[in-house]
C-alpha cells in the first residue's frame, strides 16, 4: 500500500508545482506566509498586551465603573449615576486642590526646564572634559533617589533647625528663617522646590542629549557670521531642542498634576489644606473616608484634566515636525 501511495502523493506534488508560477497562487502563498508571520507576531505581542490589558486598561475601566457608584470598598454598592461627578464641582476643597496642582506646575515644570536648558548649555561648552561627566552625574542623582526619600530628606532640611534655615542664619537672614513646610504662605512653594530639585536632573539630561544631535556646523557658521553665545543659544540651540523641551514639559506637567509622594511625605496636605493636591485627595477619599466612588470620580476627572493639558502639547510638537 505504502509503495503505491508514495508515487501518488509525489504525483500530486508534481501536479501542483506547475501552477506555482501563476499570480493567484503566489498571492495565496504570500497571504499564508503573512498569516503565519502574523500569528507569530501575535504570540510575541500577547504577553505584553495581556499584561497591559490586565494591569492598565482593566483598572482604568474599573475606576470609571466605580465612579458611578456609592461604594465603601467592601459592602454592596449603589448606583448613583453622575452624582459623584456633580459633587466635584460643589466642593471648594476639591477645586482648591486642583488650583494647588496648577501652581505646582511652575515649580515642577518651568523651573526645571529653564534651569535645565541653561545648565545643559553650559555643560555643552565643556562637553569633552571629565568635568562634564561629573557635573552630569551629580545633577542627575536626585532623579534616582526614591521620591519618598527625597521628601523625608527635604522635610528635615526645611524644618526649623534644618540646613536651609542654618544657611539663612549664617548669612544673617534670621528674619527669613521659618518652618517652611508649616507656614501657610511657604508650604506650597517649599513642596514645589522639592519637586524642582527632583525633576531638574531629568530635564537637564534629556536636553543635553538633544544638544549632541545638533550639527556643529551650524554653530560654526553662526560664529563666522559673528553670533555671540546668546545669539547661538536663541537661534540654534533652542529651536533645535523643540522636541526635547516638549517632552520635558509633558513629563513634568504630568508629575505636577498627578503629584502625590512628595506632598504625602512632606506635608500630607497641611497646613490647613494649603498643599492639598488631587492625588492626595483621592487617597484620603478612598482609604480614609471610604468613598471609593467619589475617589474614582476624582481620579477620572484628574486623568481627563492631565490629558486636556498634555494633548495640546503633543499637537504642538507634531505641527513643528510637519
Amino acid at each position, binding site marked *: 500500500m505504502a509503495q503505491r501511495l508514495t508515487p501518488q502523493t509525489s504525483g500530486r506534488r508534481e501536479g501542483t508545482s506547475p501552477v506555482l508560477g501563476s499570480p493567484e497562487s503566489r498571492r495565496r502563498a504570500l497571504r499564508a506566509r503573512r498569516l503565519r508571520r502574523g500569528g507569530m507576531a501575535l504570540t510575541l505581542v500577547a504577553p505584553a498586551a495581556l499584561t497591559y490589558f490586565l494591569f492598565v486598561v482593566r483598572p482604568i*475601566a*474599573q475606576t470609571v*465603573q466605580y465612579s458611578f457608584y456609592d461604594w465603601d470598598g*467592601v459592602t454592596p454598592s449603589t448606583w448613583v449615576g453622575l452624582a459623584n461627578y456633580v459633587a466635584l464641582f460643589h466642593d471648594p476643597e476639591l477645586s482648591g486642590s486642583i488650583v494647588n496642582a496648577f501652581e505646582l506646575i511652575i515649580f515642577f515644570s518651568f523651573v526645571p526646564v529653564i534651569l535645565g536648558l541653561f545648565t545643559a548649555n553650559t555643560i555643552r561648552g565643556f562637553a569633552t572634559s571629565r568635568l562634564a561627566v561629573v557635573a552630569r552625574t551629580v545633577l542627575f542623582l536626585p532623579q534616582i533617589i526614591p521620591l519618598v526619600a527625597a521628601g523625608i530628606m527635604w522635610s528635615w532640611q526645611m524644618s526649623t533647625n534644618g540646613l536651609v534655615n542654618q544657611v539663612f542664619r549664617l548669612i544673617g537672614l534670621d528674619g527669613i528663617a*521659618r518652618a517652611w*513646610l508649616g507656614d501657610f504662605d511657604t508650604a506650597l512653594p517649599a513642596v514645589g522646590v522639592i519637586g524642582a530639585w527632583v525633576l531638574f536632573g531629568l530635564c537637564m539630561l534629556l536636553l543635553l542629549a538633544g544638544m549632541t544631535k545638533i550639527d556643529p556646523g551650524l554653530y560654526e557658521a553662526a560664529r563666522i557670521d559673528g553670533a555671540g553665545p546668546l545669539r547661538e543659544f536663541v537661534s540654534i540651540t533652542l529651536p533645535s531642542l523643540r522636541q526635547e523641551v516638549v517632552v520635558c514639559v509633558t513629563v513634568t506637567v504630568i508629575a505636577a498634576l498627578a503629584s502625590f509622594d512628595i506632598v504625602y511625605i512632606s506635608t500630607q496636605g497641611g497646613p490647613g489644606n494649603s498643599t492639598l493636591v488631587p492625588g492626595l485627595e483621592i487617597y484620603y477619599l478612598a482609604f*480614609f473616608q471610604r468613598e471609593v466612588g467619589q475617589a474614582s470620580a476624582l481620579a477620572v476627572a484628574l486623568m481627563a484634566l492631565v490629558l486636556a493639558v498634555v494633548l495640546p502639547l503633543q499637537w504642538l510638537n507634531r505641527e513643528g515636525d510637519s
Partner: protein
Amino acid sequence: MLVGALAVLTACSSPGSTPDETSSNPTTEPTVAEGAPSCGTDPVTLKAYFETGFPMAGDLTEEFTKQFPNVTFDTREDQFAVLTQNAPRVLADDPPDLMRLPQMSELATDGLLLNLDSYAEAFGWDQWPASQLEQMRVDDAGRRGDGPLYAMGLNFSMTGVFYNKELAAQIGMTEAPATLAELDGYLQAAKDAGLTPVAQFNGGATGGFAFPLQALMASYGDPAEISAWIYQQPGATIDTPSNLKAAEHLQSWVTSGYFAEDVNSLDYAMMMSRFIGGESVFIFDGDWESGNLDTQMPGNVGFFLMPPVDEGGSFGAMSAPLTYGISANAANPDCAAFFLDWVATNEQARTIAVQIGGSHPMGPADAFMPDVDPNTVTAQTLVAGAAIGEQNGAMDFIANATGSIYAKGWTPNLQKLMAGEQDPAGLLAAVQAEYETEIGG
C-alpha cells in the same frame, strides 16, 4: 464603543457584590456553649493583627501562651494609618481573630465585626462600670454609645498635661495648677524665662491642638454634651457658647505666643523628641506615653489634668479604650473572647497593661492593681484616671466623631487657628458644617 468596551472589561457587575454574601451576616451572634467560652485544650493558633510600635499587645500574647501553652499567636503588625486603610478589607477577606481597630462604627454596621454581647454576658463584662464599654457599643444607625458591643479594650487611656519637672521648677511651678488662670500664669512664666512653653504637634495631617481644645471644652462646659456630639446624638452641636469660650482660650494661648512658632510643622514624633530633649515645658498628650517617659526621663515628668476654670469646678479628659475586635468571620472567636477577658481579669495581664501600656486596665472597679512606684508619671496618670472616673469626666476623642472629621474638620481649621487665618467662632462653625455633611450624607 468605549462604554461598550468598559462594560465588557468590568463584566458589568456592580462592585462589592460577592457571591458568598451569606458568610458575612451582620448580626450573627456566636452560639456560646454551656459554661463560659474558653480556648479548650486542643492546639489553637489565633490570628492577630496589631499596631506597630506598641509592645503591650505582643507582651500580653506571650504571657497568654505561657499560661495556656495550647494557644499560639500568628501576629501581623502595621502602623495605625495602614490599619485604618486596611480594616474593612482585612476583616472581610483575611479575617483575624483579634484586631486592633480604628474608628469602628462603620465596621460594625457593615457587619464586619462580631457582636460580643453574648460573651459580655457569659464573662460578666456587663457588670463592669458601664462607661468603660460605652464607646464600643454601636447601634443599627452606626451611632456609638448604645447598642450591641462590638469591641473590647486592652486597657483605657486618658489624656492631660505632661510637664518637665526640672523646667517647671525653674519657673517656680512646684505643684500642678488648680485653675486655668494658674496654668496661664505658668505658661507666661515659661515664656518670660525664655523657654518654649508648649511644642504641641499640629503639623501635616495631625491637628494635635485638638488635645488642649477638648480638655478646655470640658473645663468650660459639660463633658456629657461633648460625648453626645461624638456619639452623633440627634441635634448635638459642637458650636456652643461654652465651647466657644474654650476655643477662645486656646486662641489666647496662640496670640500670647505660648506655642512654639513652628507647631504647624511638628508631627507627633517631633513633639515627643523635643519634650524628651527638654525643649518644651508642657505637652498635651496621653498616658500611653507614661511608660515611655518613665524610661526616657525617669523622675523628671509630672502629669495633671487640664484644670477647671474655678477651683473645684468641672474638668474632663479624653479617655478611650484601646479597642480590639473579633472579625465576624473569625475562625476562633471563643478563644479570642477568652483572651480579651483574661487581659482584663488576670493579675499578670493587668500588671502588663499598667507597666508596659502605662494605662488603666479594663475590668471591675475593685479589681487587682499592680504596685506602681509613686515617683513615676505612670502612678500620677493612674491617680488622675481615678479622679476622672469620680467626676464622670471621661469623653471619647472629638476627632472620632465621624470617620473623617479629624482630617477634614479639626486638623485644617486648627492649623488655620494657629496661623491666625481662622477665629474661634469660625473654627467651630466649620467643624459643625463638616460634621453635618458627613452624618447627613
